[in-house]
């Protein structure tokens, strides 16, 4: 059973096609990454899923039925554009948003209190939103999107602007949700997070799907053809090497893709001749590299 199914969904503004015949499904209980560079159409896609805008063409099914507004009571949405009523007390705000999602005021209050204890902000419930730091506001909004215990959770850049401690706090909550069988959609361009959390992904560029499927399978498809090298000295020669098909310098280390048929041991000898190698590791390509390569290819 799919939580959401998009079938050839299309949305254009004026002459600009934001989403171009996009299709994907998210299985119930899966953590799904909707990836893509800035302006690829991630937010436009999400907005159609939750009925803020209407697709020009194609169908969207949610919980196995054609989209209907009442399904939204089972959806929790954290938009990328964060916003709360600044002059409103935090607790009142959470109760209000909970009520809009169909909760009774009492239930909403109870849940808001227990969530705020969990996310270590219970001392701030009586404050006005404008008195809170950005990170705290983000936690409030995070709570607001989960207050009504939704079955489908949509998170648009959920960790943006959070310090590592709070980011990991939220990540743990989301993993807990996954264990409870909730379906989670991440929209992000932060690949490291996706790699840690997602079961499957859809990578979109210019409104089109350019890569999708099970994350492990995708990575396996690229094989262990990547080498991560840490060294001292000038590594620029690697860019010219016939053994290397692509090259990425991350500052502290470089990641290269072996050219078809190239021998990794030969590359190691080449590198060792010219610099002091402290690490040389054969590995699957990182999602980031797959991302960059796929996007470059589809742009070309």
């Amino acid at each position: 059973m799919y939580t959401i199914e998009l079938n050839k969904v299309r949305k254009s503004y004026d002459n600009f096609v934001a989403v171009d015949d996009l299709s994907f499904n998210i299985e119930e209980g899966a953590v799904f990454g909707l990836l893509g560079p800035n302006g690829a159409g991630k937010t436009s896609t999400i907005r159609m899923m939750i009925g803020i805008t209407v697709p020009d063409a194609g169908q969207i099914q949610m919980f196995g039925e054609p989209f209907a507004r009442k399904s939204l009571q089972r959806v929790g949405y954290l938009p990328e554009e964060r916003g709360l009523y600044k002059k409103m007390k935090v607790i009142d705000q959470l109760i209000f948003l909970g009520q809009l999602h169909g909760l009774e005021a009492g239930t909403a209050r109870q849940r808001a209190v227990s969530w705020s204890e969990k996310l270590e902000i219970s001392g701030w419930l009586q404050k006005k939103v404008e008195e809170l730091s950005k990170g705290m506001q983000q936690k409030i909004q995070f709570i607001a999107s989960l207050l009504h215990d939704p079955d489908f959770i949509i998170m648009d850049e959920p960790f943006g602007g959070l310090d590592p401690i709070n980011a990991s706090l939220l990540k743990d909550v989301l993993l807990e949700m996954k264990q409870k069988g909730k379906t989670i959609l991440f929209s992000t361009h932060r690949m490291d997070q996706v790699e840690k959390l997602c079961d499957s992904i859809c990578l979109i560029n210019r409104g089109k799907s350019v890569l999708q499927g099970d994350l492990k399978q995708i990575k396996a498809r690229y094989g262990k053809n990547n080498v991560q090298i840490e060294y001292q000295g000038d590594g620029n020669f690697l860019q010219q090497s016939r053994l290397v098909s692509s090259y990425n310098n991350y500052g502290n280390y470089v990641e290269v893709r072996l050219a078809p048929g190239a021998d990794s041991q030969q590359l190691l000898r080449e590198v060792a001749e010219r610099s002091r190698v402290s690490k040389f590791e054969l590995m699957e390509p990182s999602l980031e590299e797959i991302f960059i390569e796929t996007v470059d290819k589809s742009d070309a």
Partner: protein
Amino acid sequence: MRNVFLIARREYLERVRTKGFLFMTIFIPGLMFGVIALPSVIATRMSGSKHLVVAAADLQTAQLIREELLKPAQSGSKTLDERDQAGASRYSVDVETDVTDGARARLIAKVKAKQLDGLLWATDDALAANKVPYFTRDVSGLIDHAVVQQSLSRAVHRRILQEKGLSGNEIDAALKPVDMEALNPAGIGPSNPVTTFVAVLIMVMIMYMTVLFYGSNVMRAIVEEKTSRIMEVMLSTANANETMAGKILGVGAVGLTQIGIWTVTTGVLSAPGLIAGAEVLKGVVSLKVVIFFPVFFLLGFTLFSTLYAAVGAMVNSEQEGQQLQFLVAMPLIASVIILLQVLQNPATPLALWASIFPLTAPLLMFTRIALDPTVPSWQIAASIALLLATIYGLMILCGRIYRIGILMYGKKPTLPEILKWIKYA
């Protein structure tokens, strides 16, 4: 509907709880009181009782002027009545029959030295020339001068008639003002035209002011929603029309609460006056007016709030809104201009059509109903039906503008773009 209610309630509670609301609730009546009551309070205080001297060669003339000045309220035109009431007890008047230049210089010196407040120099020459000098330090005291002048005129007329040999009763009869009653061809007229006129004008002004004031509050509420960037969360649960309706109802209810507080307070404070006033009003304000004032007030209020909400949805900041706000206020201003004509003649074709056209109907249909008891029911019904239809259509239209407009930041939309939004959504 639940969402509309929730949004409206939030809007209402958040606004009513602010210090700003409390301040405005107290401040506005305070200001009104200040503007209306303070000057007259100050005037009474400052003037206290005024000491005048009436100088005339003819003792009888001088005494007649004195009598008129000291006379309490007299029946006649309403407005002058009020002046008399305020002024009557305020004068103490001495009579002087020495009209030599020496006496004149001496009395003027007294005025200058603040021993006297005024000197009315009613010599035979001055009376014959129909122009009597009045020496006072305050040459621009309009109300005061009107009272003195009127007393002078009446005294002089009375003196002339006396000299013709008429008796006191005959003179009273001759000087009695004649009333006129305005009737339409059907022979019906308001029982008290001036008061009706004033009452209608006040009601129309209340309507106009509240719509302008609270309407722009709706606009601000929508802009706030945009600048706080919360609408994406809101739209993921409530649709644009619900949000729109909730905002308008919530902010509107705040306005009505404030007006309610003022009305009740005024009512309680002036209860004794009100009971007496009710008798007067009974003849002036018909049952129709009592029924239709709230009807057209609410319709007008909702209509213009919806328009303001649309402006709010189109703009990114209040400053941008200020410019467009003018467009929304235009029909209101046009209403007031047409109103001036309707007040003179509630039965012209312009009055008819303007009172049915939805954007001008709230003010003008109400005015017609109040002034002209013969307005056919079908016209009233048509006006109300058109208003309701317009409000409904505008809400949907504005909801569309809102839905797209709020998701686009940064750029001020052009008219073609707005039309496109309406089509898209």
